């Protein structure tokens, strides 16, 4: 088994992952992106992107190829493989892939994206690819001059439904809401209502996809009347939202919300130290290329600072031959600065017996967390990395002398 060590491993090569890769590469940390399939993520199947700043109009694949090239040009390694297992229990994270490769990293960014939600109604899975579809760009063309049913009424459902009308003779949208109410944006709704090929079935849901070898209809239930009816069609496109592609993380100790999305803070930090989540797979308000890229940048910078702290810690603190006094301070807390001066004074009076390391708690958060330090000033006495004791930090020279 081949084993390789990295500073940062990014799982997923969509807009979030590739942006993290660009930041990682530019920060000169050893960065690897692992992605299954083609780089670009879900946006790869998008025909038109018209809201990414600086690119008035571009296609998904074209925009993503510039992201990828950019990441490669700054020295990031990109590989095609699928992560099947992770071990986040130790400081050195272990990642195992389908091809049997094992990688370790100091920090990991999860940018795994999402996949279309499957309703799991009868016939849906069985007829997938035989009339049941999830991607209009991929499959609309197969329904030339036929009747297609679209399930859902969000932006994606309505916009993709409109695209399908380029091929199909008729598109019928099954909508949960009362007549005239769609979940999509207003511009798309107006366009859809004025498109002759677009038809709507209101207050309804789909119960079953019908057909032996190919789709030949759907069973629809009217939620108001409770009456079920059948509608003949040759294709059914499902656009009923997405689910995060985070299944392989289920035993990692990572926290999720009830829908499987990963909650993070402002720094994209998950509940596990050194593990970040960026892009569509995290809990968030807006899932777009631009917001994914923003997440990717934040996560990479947070990861880079975390790695820097780790390296600093390992080199200076664990490598010292004499006991270390780890002094936590904050530049804005006067008492912590004053105590620092006193500590240096006392330590120099008793000779070269201690090495003093100052830790600015406002930036080096993870070291403070490691020792459970919440307030400054605080001093931890360490010997070869082992905690000997915590000092009492009152500004009293005599007391400090006694403690040392």
């Amino acid at each position, binding site marked *: 088994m081949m084993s390789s060590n990295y500073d940062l491993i990014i799982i997923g090569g969509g807009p979030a992952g590739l942006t993290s890769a660009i930041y990682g590469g530019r920060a000169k940390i050893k960065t690897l992106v692992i992605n*299954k*399939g*083609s780089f*670009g*993520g*879900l946006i*790869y*199947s998008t*025909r038109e992107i018209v809201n990414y700043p600086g690119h008035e109009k571009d*296609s*998904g*694949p074209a925009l993503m190829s510039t992201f990828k090239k950019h990441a490669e040009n700054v020295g990031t390694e990109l590989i*095609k493989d699928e992560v099947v297992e992770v071990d986040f229990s130790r400081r050195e994270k272990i990642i195992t892939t*389908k*091809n049997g490769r094992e990688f370790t990293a100091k920090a990991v960014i999860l940018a795994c994206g999402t996949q279309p939600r499957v309703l799991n109604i009868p016939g849906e899975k069985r007829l*997938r*690819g*035989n*009339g*049941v*579809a999830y*991607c209009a*760009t*991929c*499959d609309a*063309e*197969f*329904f030339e001059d036929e009747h297609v049913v679209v399930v859902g009424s969000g932006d994606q459902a309505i916009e993709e439904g409109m695209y399908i009308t380029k091929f199909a003779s008729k598109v019928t949208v099954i909508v949960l809401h009362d007549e005239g109410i769609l979940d999509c944006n207003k511009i798309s709704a107006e366009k859809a209502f004025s498109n002759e090929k677009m038809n709507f079935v209101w207050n309804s849901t789909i119960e079953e996809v019908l057909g032996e070898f*190919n*789709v030949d209809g759907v069973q629809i239930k009217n939620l108001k009347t409770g009456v079920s009816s059948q509608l003949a069609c*040759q*294709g059914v496109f499902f656009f009923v939202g997405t689910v995060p592609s985070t299944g392989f993380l289920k035993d990692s100790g990572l926290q999720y919300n009830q829908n499987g999305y990963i909650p993070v803070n402002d720094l994209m930090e998950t509940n596990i130290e050194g593990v970040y989540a960026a892009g569509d797979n995290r809990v968030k308000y807006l899932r777009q290329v631009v917001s994914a890229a923003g997440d990717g940048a934040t996560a990479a910078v947070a990861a880079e600072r975390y790695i820097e702290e780790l390296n600093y810690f390992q080199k200076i603190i664990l490598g010292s031959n004499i006991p270390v006094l780890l002094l936590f301070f904050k530049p804005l807390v006067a008492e912590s600065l004053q105590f620092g001066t006193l500590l240096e004074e006392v330590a120099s009076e008793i000779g070269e017996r201690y090495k003093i390391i100052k830790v600015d708690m406002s930036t080096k958060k993870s070291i403070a967390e490691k020792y459970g330090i919440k307030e400054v000033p605080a001093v931890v006495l360490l010997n070869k990395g082992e905690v000997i004791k915590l000092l009492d930090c009152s500004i009293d020279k005599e007391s400090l002398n006694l403690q040392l």
Partner: protein
Amino acid sequence: MQLKKLDAVSFEEVIYDNCEACLVVFSRKSCHVCQEIISIIEDLLEKYEGKLGFYYIDVEQNKDLYKRFSLRGVPQILFFYGGEYKGKLVGQVEEEDVEAKIVEIL
């Protein structure tokens, strides 16, 4: 290693003239799932090289072919043996499924 691209003419040659045992992925450049499937199949290529042909067809350029097989979406992996169609795998399949099908037809 990569799959070899077929068009309408070479498809006839490989499948029906040479009766090659092979799989053919019907795919589209802009289809994300297709790209995932192709990379899965590329991983199998080395193992079965010499026993099975690995091909792909871009449906955008070969409308007649997907109509002939009444395909209703991509990706689809069609299997052939001795000039006969031996079934297909549809959509987002796993490597194990593809390998099981390969073993079955060989």
